[in-house]
């Protein structure tokens, strides 16, 4: 069985489409494969967020748990979608719980490792910030739509 190099795998993921090969190689140095069984948590609210995941297979739920209330799922993520941006900015803490809904395989990108490389290679840092800004903008747009409750009865 041949194992595909991680930089080759990264190149196929939309978040990294079009990146320079040397940048992909640098990022691949911070990447590893992880798996989560159904029900297993990949992140807990308030805990250190020194990584992000790119899902390759399976599905994860972002959840908010408020004491005395039912746990609410605010978003589900699937193949090629990105889980987490808290690794980018202090205080590097997860804002939500992330729970695997099915057996989930993902690429884990080590945040400390990446931030160190960004310091040494600002072009790479800018490129990744630019790409994550799009992830964040989409999430904010989605949250805006959810807050507007557009399907509610406002008559």
């Amino acid at each position, binding site marked *: 069985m041949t194992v595909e190099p991680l930089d080759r795998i990264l190149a196929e993921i939309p978040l990294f489409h079009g990146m320079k090969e040397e940048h992909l190689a640098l990022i691949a140095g911070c990447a590893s494969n992880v798996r989560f069984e159904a029900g297993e948590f990949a992140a807990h609210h308030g805990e250190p967020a020194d990584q992000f995941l790119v899902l390759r297979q399976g599905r994860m*739920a972002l*959840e908010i748990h408020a004491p005395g209330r039912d746990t609410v799922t*605010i978003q589900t993520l*699937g193949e090629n979608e990105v889980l987490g941006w808290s690794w980018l900015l202090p205080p590097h803490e997860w804002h939500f719980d992330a729970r695997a809904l099915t057996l989930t395989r993902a690429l884990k990108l080590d945040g400390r490792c990446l931030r160190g490389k960004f310091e040494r290679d600002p072009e790479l840092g800018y490129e990744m910030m630019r790409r994550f800004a799009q992830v964040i903008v989409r999430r904010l*747009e*989605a949250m805006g739509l959810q807050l507007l*409750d*557009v*399907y509610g009865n406002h008559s």
Partner: protein
Amino acid sequence: MRPVPFRVLRRKRETHDTFSLVLKPPSAAGPFSFAPGQFNMVNVFGMGEVPLSMSGHSGEVREIVHTIRVVGPVTQTLNRLRAGGTVGIRGPFGASWPLGAAEGHDVVMVAGGIGLAPIRPAIYHVLDHREKYGKVAILYGARTPHDILFLREIESWRGRFDVEVEVTVDRASRDWHGLVGVVTGLVPRVHFDPGNTVAFVCGPEVMITFAVRELARSGVPARKTYVSLERNMKCAIGLCGHCQLGPLFLCKDGPVLRYDQVAGLLRMREL
């Protein structure tokens, strides 16, 4: 145009606040003919009239379906109708989904909430003439799992191998095993050739705006994106001006319009 009395054949509960009425035109009138996306003015005698898109099969039909959300006195009264009741119908009115122009293209249909009802005749048409279209995707977003319209039918569409169907809800508890997130997030999940795609979008105006933006990010231009808009239709023949959007009368020029023709108008708060 005077309302024609149509008889209620059946009433079907769709969700906790939405129901469908199956209506039969008077025998003397012959079959009723409409195109997907068109609407009727449905009259509760002595109470008022509401604009409602047809939600069943299109063409020359012997019964029509309206799917209705209870939002005011007229729809509350309609909700109390049962088989044998009567409503007045004026119609059909307005522009339809451009199904002919979409032939040979991939078709992406995005619907939110009750917006699945006006687009359903177009879905039926595309699925009934599947060979005329490229890839087909149906994307639907609802508020919660309890608000999903036509659930069984969606499952049957999902069972087909020639159409991609994705459903999401804005919020859910843990007992929901489907997708959670806004409908716009479904666009990147499905496969289509953006340069050869026609998109139909139907739902609340805010949702339409965001959905069109996401389609544009995926490469589908506004001139290939059609939306269904509904604003306070009254006369339905472009005279009274209640549904006016800038130079357009949505009852006559719409409700289905090409997005690049209305994008600027939708951004104007005064309209």
